[in-house]
């Protein structure tokens, strides 16, 4: 139990659109251990993004329970959930989702700023991580002055710089060319190995699935298969 990073028990999610109920996840139970590099795969509409949203406390399940580092997310209020997202989770979105008015540097340090990390420490850590993701010299650019790959690197830097327990990456390579995607995956793998950060991707990109050491497959909102593809 101590090794559980994430635990889901009979989790389901139903979206309501007027009178119509659309089940997105049904009775999903699984565990993700600390330090895993796992991918959630499945066709469009299989519930991958919904699963990541629920694990990331961005949404609440209709049924079942989710624990993150042993904490029952359903027992926490909005502010406590905000703190969990801020301090324990790093998000990488498919659409990058950088803040338009902030520079690459400011976007990368954003979470540390709201954590209250002192400015000098923020500067050092942000400079280092931007260099690590290959964005040294581009710190002052705004998102609209960066390519898609560069924006995704900023998003990864933002997700990683605080040293989260888990990084949830939703289709992180979907909008990237092969070279950029490989380079980002290399970087995430290295972070996983060096720092023990747990990674959970939603993807149907074969490049990601090739790197993942565990692949969880969803179909029509249900757990279809869960296999360890590589041993650490």
């Amino acid at each position: 139990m101590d090794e559980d990073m994430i635990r889901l028990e009979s989790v389901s999610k139903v979206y309501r659109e007027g009178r119509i109920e659309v089940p997105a996840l049904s009775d999903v139970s699984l565990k993700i251990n600390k330090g895993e590099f796992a991918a959630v795969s499945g066709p469009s509409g299989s519930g991958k993004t919904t699963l990541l949203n629920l694990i990331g406390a961005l949404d609440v399940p209709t049924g079942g329970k989710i624990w993150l580092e042993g904490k029952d997310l359903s027992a926490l209020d909005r502010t406590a959930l905000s703190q969990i997202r801020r301090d324990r989770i790093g998000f990488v979105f498919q659409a990058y989702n950088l803040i338009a008015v902030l520079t690459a540097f400011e976007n990368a340090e954003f979470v540390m700023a709201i954590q209250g990390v002192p400015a000098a420490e923020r500067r050092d850590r942000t400079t280092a991580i931007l260099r690590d993701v290959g964005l040294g010299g581009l710190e002052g650019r705004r998102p609209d002055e960066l390519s898609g790959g560069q924006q995704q690197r900023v998003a990864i830097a933002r997700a990683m710089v605080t040293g989260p327990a888990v990084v949830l990456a939703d289709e992180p390579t979907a909008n990237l060319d092969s070279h950029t995607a490989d380079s980002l995956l290399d970087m995430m793998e290295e972070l996983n190995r060096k720092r023990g950060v747990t990674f959970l991707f939603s993807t149907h990109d074969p490049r990601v699935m090739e790197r993942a050491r565990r692949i969880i497959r969803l179909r029509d909102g249900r757990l279809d298969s869960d296999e360890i593809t590589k041993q650490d």
Partner: protein
Amino acid sequence: MALRNLGRNKTRTGITVFSMAFAGFTMILYMSLVAGFFQTLEDNTIGLDLGEFQMHAKGYRSDPDLYKRIEDPASVIRTASERGFNASARLYGYGLAAFGNSSAGVMLRGVDLENEPKVTRISGSVMEGSWLDRADPKGVVVGKKLARTLGLKPGDELVLVSQASDGSMANDLYKVRGVLKTVGEVVDQAGFLMSDDEFRRLLVVPTGAHEVAMTRRNKDVPLDAATAEASKAFPGLEVRNWKQLQPILARMMDMMGTSVKMVIMIAYSAVGMIILNAMLMNVFERIREFGVMKALGVSPARIFLLITAEALLSAFFASVAAAGLGAPAALHYQRHGLDLEMLTTSMNVSGMALDPTLHFRLTPAALGMPIFFMFALVVVATLYPAMKAAVIRPVEALHHQ
């Protein structure tokens, strides 16, 4: 960050700030105008005619009778002076003035020429000719409208007929020394001012006075306290302050603050709609970004504060512009006045005169209240959009198109 967000849509921010600034500018001018208007009214009411206090023999005000007089006005003036008041005695009577083929009823006022200038500014309020002079006992000063009714100008001779206190016919020939500026409705229409000596001789009133007008030498003493002090000093007389003498005017002034606040709120409500609309658009356009921020761990309270800070920054810029333009404009009209002569030659409120040139008065309230209300309005108009952004679930915000 709030500052940068304002720069995202410069046109919208510009329109919002301009609307707020224009409303603030207008309200600063309006409040300065109202403050100046009432200050002028108060100054004229007290300074040209009433004085701050008036004392009469008991029953005189309800029945102004030539025989109801303050017995020893000299002693009253002396006592008043010892208690910190400037005082001047007045005598009143009524008669008929005739000039050429015209005649008009007049209110005679016998003026204490030495003391009246210590109480009112009426001696300096002569529009044509000059003020009364003891060396010219037959010289009189008449009200502005009376002069127009009879066609009088300085130098004209007119006949006055009245009844003296001994029952005899009082009549004499007088020469117009001066015509007064606007003072007040009664003085303008019927004022016939002469020296107290001449009044006593004409109407055979050797002693006493009908009225003693007074003002405080120390304006820091509250009006009500001074009234109580005078009442105590002169128990046999009826003492009233100007607010009691002109209750409608006093009530209007008391209500000024409330009515001005209402006007500000009405004017600002339109601006409030613009702010609300701009803030709603601002929030809805960025709802996805708020979702990202919430996903990254920004608390609802911080989202709320960010949006409120953006609105308050707009209000700050608008306030600087409103005060930067409004204060100099108000000060200009405070110094030079706004001339309404083209619209009217004289104005009066509740019988009290106002010069058609309105002098603004830039008070701390005239400058501060519009700005305070602007900030209050911004906070109120921002509440809904800020709350909406603060409470939206991150996943909904992230999927917002």
